[in-house]
């Protein structure tokens, strides 16, 4: 029987990293995600799997350590929270431009600025629209449970290497801090250097062997034609992700007349709101995007004809709602409810806001 352990979402990330064959973690402490590095340091995976764990001098350095590791074709990751991820945006742009796979976990807190250490979802735009400079995207996964925090580590690496692109787990302080039972998946060994050479020697800096051309990992292309081609390659990857790797969960959407769209901790709260509505005879459903990029635009499109309204519920001033509105394209009203400052609304509060919006 699979091993089940009670742990925090943040701890689940650390255990998942060790168990899925991650080669290196480089991070910098910041609330509310410090347990990730703390757990790794306590577990000392360098003694068992050989995974490297290092506390960097800043988030800027962490993300650039990830860049170095990713250049070598290694499975590398970092984690941080909002202000730290802002510092990482330079590196994320370079990673995307150089087509490097990696995992960045953002356990989001309230912003802007130093903000609050309470949960938030105000980094949605930063995560799905780029954040750093230039036209790039990342795979963005939004877990809503400790189990998903665990499972999305391996999934992120899989997608990151599939597309040679950075992947982000966009969690929030609630999912990071709450304790739940987590089923540990079977151990996956780290790839050996030989296996990495076999799989990635067409691009990774594994050492120039005689007969192979030198591998240079760079995002620089001063020739306009080449640079446009590089950008077109990136865009083609993003379109492919939109075709093949959209993930979402639907609750009671089959007969729904209204649908709430929510991710992360807000999706769990809204699940209770759906139950409340159903008890009152209101046909409310929940669409939970699991990938925020690629966004479930097609699924929203599919649902719109049967719906009277949609509502985006977020711990922000309204960010994902813009993507919902783009998908709905004016066909039905798209309402919004959000709380800021680290305040997490109750299911009742969401339900009241929902009723008020549809009766307007």
């Amino acid at each position, binding site marked *: 029987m699979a091993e089940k352990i009670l742990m925090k979402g943040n701890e689940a990330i650390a255990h998942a990293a060790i168990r899925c064959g991650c080669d290196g973690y480089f991070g910098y402490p910041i609330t509310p995600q410090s347990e990730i590095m703390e757990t790794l340091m306590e577990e000392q995976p360098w003694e068992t799997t050989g995974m490297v764990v*290092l506390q960097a*001098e800043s988030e800027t350095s962490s993300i650039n350590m990830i860049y170095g590791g990713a*250049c*070598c074709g290694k499975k590398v990751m970092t984690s941080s929270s909002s202000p730290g991820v802002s510092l990482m945006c330079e590196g994320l742009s370079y990673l995307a431009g150089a087509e490097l796979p990696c995992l960045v976990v953002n356990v989001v807190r309230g912003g802007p600025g130093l903000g609050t250490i309470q949960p938030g979802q105000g980094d949605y735009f930063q995560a799905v629209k780029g954040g750093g400079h230039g036209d790039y995207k990342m795979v963005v996964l939004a877990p809503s449970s400790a189990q998903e925090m665990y499972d999305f580590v391996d999934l992120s690496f899989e997608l990151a290497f599939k597309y040679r692109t950075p992947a982000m787990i966009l969690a929030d302080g609630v999912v990071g801090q709450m304790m739940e039972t987590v089923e540990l998946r079977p151990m996956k060994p780290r790839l050996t250097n030989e296996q990495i050479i076999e799989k990635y020697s067409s691009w990774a800096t594994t050492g*120039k062997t005689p007969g192979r051309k030198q*591998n240079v990992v*760079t995002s620089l292309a001063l020739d306009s034609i080449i640079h446009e081609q590089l950008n077109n390659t990136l865009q083609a990857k993003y379109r492919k992700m939109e075709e093949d790797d959209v993930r979402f969960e639907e609750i009671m959407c089959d007969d729904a007349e209204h649908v709430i769209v929510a991710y992360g901790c807000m999706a769990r709260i809204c699940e209770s709101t759906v139950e409340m509505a159903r008890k009152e005879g209101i046909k409310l459903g929940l669409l939970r995007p699991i990938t925020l990029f690629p966004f479930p635009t097609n699924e929203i499109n599919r649902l719109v004809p049967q719906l009277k309204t949609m509502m985006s519920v977020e711990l922000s001033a309204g960010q994902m709602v813009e993507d919902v509105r783009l998908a709905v394209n004016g066909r039905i009203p798209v309402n919004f409810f959000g709380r800021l400052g680290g305040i997490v609304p109750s299911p009742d509060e969401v339900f009241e806001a929902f009723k008020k919006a549809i009766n307007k």
Partner: protein
Amino acid sequence: MDVNDIIKPENMVYSKTPVLTSTTMHYCPGCSHGTVHKLIAEVIDEMGIQEKTIGVSPVGCAVFAYNYVDIDWQQAAHGRAPAVATATKRLHPEKYVFTYQGDGDLASIGTAEIMHACNRGENIVVIFINNAIYGMTGGQMAPTTLLGMKTATTPYGRTKELHGSPLRITELLAQLEGTCYVTRQSVHNAASARKTKRAIRKAFENSALGKGTSFVEVVSTCNSGWKLSPVKANEWMVENMFPKYPVGDIKDL
């Protein structure tokens, strides 16, 4: 003896190392970068470590170092090369990992990264080109620009009041326990270039011995930025740069 009798393969005593590609360098005539690239390539060749060496190139003129030294390269964001090299070396302890950085890259925007990589004693080699100016961006003031020196952003000369004094980062790094070898060299004449090559070789050997960070500063010229001919730039360097940046070993454990 006729020249043609001398120019025969068996008499060849110096030729381009195969670790250096045949691509013509984009550097200005007389630029120290080319000489230092060559010395690195020769050391890699002589140590037989082409397969085991990974370079990290900076932002600045030397961003294209990968076009000239035929090894695997990672191109880092401005100033971040020591962080990039840190992970590369830790994930590949058997490899030789070096960064190649200019003064703006290493001593200004990347000060935190170089300090902490050296303080952790990463087993990497750092080649630091100090020509007291930002070359590629068009000759602006660098942290190492001398007082009184005119640059694009100090058109009337650098003043201590406005910009502080030139940063002798090499001396600072020598203070850190993680560095095992800290030296300052130059490549303006044959003797100094040969010394620099020996320093680079020692730095690579230290890396294999796991002694800590080896740091080789090369006091260099930027004749375009300095608005001098290549030969005059070398003379100006000896006269003006050396008093502030004296050549020699600062630390050798």
